[in-house]
């Protein structure tokens, strides 16, 4: 006879499960509600993983806030979507490109970033979503 009776053991196991449950689904999700919603609409609910194959190059300090040069270049195969999101923006999704196989997954563009923020590049490659992010400071200088 074990010191812990089976119903109690089951209850303890259930308790352990339930205590971890609220942490699980939003683990790693960005804290901002608007950004989270934009990401969910973009990917259909799956959280894009960080991947070093998604190259995001942009200055850490902007010369002009009205046109911040951003370059996305992917080393992944079968990329058919590239999106750029700006955290702390009323509408975080700034640009979304659907690419055919003729287009190379390398895009340069200019974004409007009005406050210190983070730019997130989301890429769909072979049906899976990956992301990369970079922080930017626009509060210095006289732009």
């Amino acid at each position, binding site marked *: 006879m074990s010191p812990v009776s089976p119903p109690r053991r089951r209850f303890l196991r259930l308790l352990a499960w339930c205590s971890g449950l609220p942490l699980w689904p939003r683990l790693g999700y960005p804290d901002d509600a608007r950004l989270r919603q934009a990401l969910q609409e973009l990917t259909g609910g799956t959280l894009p993983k960080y991947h070093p194959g998604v190259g995001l190059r942009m200055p850490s300090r902007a010369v002009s806030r009205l046109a911040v040069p951003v370059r996305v270049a992917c080393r992944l195969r079968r990329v058919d979507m590239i999106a750029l999101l700006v955290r702390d923006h009323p509408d975080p999704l700034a640009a979304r490109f659907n*690419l055919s196989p003729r287009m190379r997954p390398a895009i340069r563009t200019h974004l409007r970033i009005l406050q210190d923020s983070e730019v997130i590049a989301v890429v769909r490659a072979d049906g899976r979503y990956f992301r990369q992010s970079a922080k930017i400071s626009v509060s210095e200088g006289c732009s």
Partner: protein
Amino acid sequence: MIEYRSKRHRDDSVELRLFFPASEIWTGEETWPERHLDRLSLHLHGALILEAGFGPGIAAEPFFALRIDGTRPGDRLEIRWHTNQGRSGVLEIVLP
């Protein structure tokens, strides 16, 4: 008119750079973010090769640099764009 530059690289890909001057997007009355470039699409011989949608986070004078593979010199590329308040335009270019 939008401005463009196109260049064929050694690996036979074409680099296309597009610049939308403020006069193509804005009429002067609106303040950000009421008006911005909303959609951009590229058609190569009638086939859609790029479709893009934008939010207010795109620059007021948008700029894009894109690379296109598998084209021949003389191919015709059609560029279509719309702003979110109904202005639109079409530009047809011949690839180098």
